[in-house]
C-alpha cells in the first residue's frame, strides 16, 4: 500500500515536472524570459524545420516522414535574409540550382528579354529598378502581361499598400519570390537630384 502511494506520488511529481519543463525546449527563449530579446521573431535554429515539426504537416501521416527536410536541400545554397532564407537569384546565377524550362526537355532554353525599367517613385525612397532579364529567365510573358501589368508605359498604378495585399508585384513578392520587406532589392537606384528638384526649382530665364 505504502509502495503504491509512493509510486503514485512519484508518477505525479514526474508528470508535473514534465509539464513544467516541456514548455521550455519547444519554445525559444521568450517562453522562459518574458523580457527576452526578439520575443516575436523566429529564432534561426527554428528555420527550415523538417515537415513533421513545421506546424502545417500532419506528423501522424506516413507521407510526412518521407518528405525532404528543407534545411538539407538548402545546405549548399547562398543564404538569404528572409523567406526561405535562401537567395534564390544568387543560387540560380551561380548554377547551384538548374531548374528546367520545360516539363520534359532538360535542354530547352528561355528567350531572355534584357530590358530594364526604372520607375520613379513619389516618396523619398530610391527609384525602382525592374529587370526583365531575371524575370524572363523564370517566367513566360503571359504570366504578367496583360493581366497583372499592362505592357504600356505609365499604365500601371501600383503602391506598396496594394502589394502588401497581394496585388501587382505582390502576387509573387510576398508569396514565393523575395518578400517586399527586402526594400533595397527593388529600390536600388538613387534619385537623380537634378530631376528630383527640377519641378520645384526651375531656374528662371533671364
Amino acid at each position, binding site marked *: 500500500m505504502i509502495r503504491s502511494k509512493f509510486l503514485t506520488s512519484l508518477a505525479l511529481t514526474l508528470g508535473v515536472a514534465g509539464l513544467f519543463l516541456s514548455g521550455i525546449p519547444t519554445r525559444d527563449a521568450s517562453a522562459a524570459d518574458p523580457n527576452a530579446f526578439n520575443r516575436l521573431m523566429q529564432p534561426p535554429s527554428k528555420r527550415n524545420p523538417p515537415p513533421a515539426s513545421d506546424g502545417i504537416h500532419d506528423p501522424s*501521416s506516413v507521407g510526412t516522414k518521407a518528405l525532404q527536410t528543407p534545411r538539407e536541400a538548402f545546405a549548399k545554397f547562398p543564404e538569404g535574409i528572409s523567406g526561405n532564407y535562401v537567395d534564390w537569384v544568387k543560387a540560380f546565377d551561380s548554377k547551384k540550382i538548374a531548374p528546367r524550362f520545360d516539363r520534359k526537355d532538360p535542354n530547352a532554353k528561355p528567350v531572355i528579354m534584357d530590358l530594364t525599367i526604372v520607375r520613379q517613385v513619389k516618396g523619398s525612397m530610391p527609384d525602382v529598378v525592374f529587370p526583365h532579364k531575371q524575370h524572363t529567365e523564370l517566367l513566360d510573358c503571359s504570366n504578367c502581361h496583360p493581366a497583372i501589368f499592362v505592357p504600356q508605359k505609365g499604365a500601371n498604378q501600383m503602391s506598396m499598400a496594394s502589394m502588401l495585399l497581394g496585388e501587382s508585384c505582390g*502576387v509573387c513578392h510576398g508569396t514565393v519570390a523575395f518578400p517586399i520587406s527586402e526594400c533595397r532589392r527593388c529600390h536600388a537606384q538613387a534619385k537623380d537630384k537634378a530631376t528630383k528638384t527640377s519641378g520645384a526649382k526651375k531656374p528662371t530665364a533671364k
Partner: protein
Amino acid sequence: MARTLCKRIMVLALTLVSLVLLTHSVGYAEYGDVVINKYSDDAGIRPVVFPHWFHRVRYRCKVCHADLGFKFKAGGNDINMLKIINGEYCGACHNGEIAWSVDNCDLCHSAKPKTPTQVHESTMQKLIRPTGAPK
C-alpha cells in the same frame, strides 16, 4: 491493483506532457508552402501541402504557371483527382514517369486536417492570420 493505478497515472501524466508539447509547437513551415483545402476536408482526406521550394529547385515558374495553367492564387485552381489522373495540373508530372504517381496519396495529402487554404508565411498571411492549423 496498485500497479494498474500507478500505470494509469503514468499514462495520464505522459498524455498531459505530450499535449503540452503539441500545443507549444509553432508553425514554422517554409515560405511559399501552399495548403490546398478546397475539397479535401469534405472528402475526408488530409489537405494538400504544395512545397514551392522543392519544385523551384527543379523547374522554372513558367513550367507550371504558364504551360500547365496554374493560376497565381492559392485555391484559385479547380484541381481534383480526376483532372490529375487525366494528366492535368499536378498530373502532368506526377504520373509515374516524370515524378512519382498519384497512388502516393500521403505525400501530397499531408497537412493537418482542417488547415485552411493559404500560402504559408506569405505577407498577407502574416498580416492577417496565423496558419489556422489546428494544434
